[in-house]
């Protein structure tokens, strides 16, 4: 399960950003995960929750937005959704340039400071 490695990298980034901004306690970490990122969102969440529980950010969680796979055809000058992992343009069969769907991006961190449960 390589999501553990990825969760470790994410935690390292989040920890250093939070430290630089003098934050601790639970935060919400917003991620964009492409359908072709190679990462299973649920497994990433589980791995992250386990790793973060031993840190000063304990209780933090991920808010994941799935990003569809889209590609641009330079020949037809169009953008299409890539279906069934077919990376050729449905109109002219030229290879598509991937626009979205391969990302694994840390978008933002939201503090929950001041929110009373």
């Amino acid at each position, binding site marked *: *399960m*390589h999501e553990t*490695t*990825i969760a470790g*990298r*994410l935690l390292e*980034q989040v920890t250093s*950003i939070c430290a630089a*901004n003098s934050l601790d306690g639970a935060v919400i970490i917003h*991620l964009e995960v492409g359908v*072709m990122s*190679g*990462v299973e969102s649920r497994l990433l969440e589980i791995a992250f929750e386990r790793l973060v529980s031993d840190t000063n950010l304990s209780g933090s969680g991920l808010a994941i937005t799935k990003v569809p796979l889209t590609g641009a055809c330079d020949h037809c000058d169009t953008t299409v959704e890539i279906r069934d*992992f*077919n*990376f*050729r343009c449905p109109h002219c069969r030229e*290879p598509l340039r991937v626009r979205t769907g391969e*990302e*694994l*991006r*840390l*978008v*933002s*961190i*939201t*503090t*929950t*400071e*001041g*929110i009373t449960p």
Partner: protein
Amino acid sequence: MNANTIVVRREVNEKQKIDADELRQTFAERGTLVVNLVSSPGAGKTALLEATAKAMGDRLRMAVLVGDLETDRDAQRLQPLMPTVQLTTGGACHLELPLVRRGLAALGDQPVDILFIENVGNLVCPASFDLAEHVRVVLVSTTEGDDKPGKYPKIIRTSHAMVVSKTDLLPHVPFSVDSVIADAERIQPELTFHKVSAIDGTGVEEWCRFLTEKHRALTVDVREVECS
């Protein structure tokens, strides 16, 4: 409510990508082509390396880092043919760059034209880890079924070449080379295809020409950068 938002917008693997790019460039400057071999267990990565070493070991200096969860069985097979370092992951399902760096340190400073990294047998996890390779080669053997490319699109998408291995068994197994190629080509239109039998030697010469050409192109590219 007093929520604060820190906007980051950064790839989670950004640091690792930069590390891998730097190492890739260092290899290129040394004239070392790095080839990452990925496949399911038993697809014939070690057999392909044995055949490759026998076919062109006298022309190019090769070395290999061999990844496995446990044992050094593959390293023992390859040791007589080229400098070999076993990387044992201790249960991890893929290789990562820090382990590759340790392998490089163990290999020492000897000049190498082609460095092979034989990844852990697994069509899922190795797809997500850049090992600073110039060429990623995925093997699909005729015994494992021709439906694999569609089932494991990420590893196909991130590869540069595909070796269809164990072609000597084609008369005995329900496997369509054409259908594998068509499937894989939809996922990665830039793939090159190499049909090889490490047992009877079919296709080994063509595969070695492919590697030789990649090595030549790498060293030419570096010289051009130096001149410009």
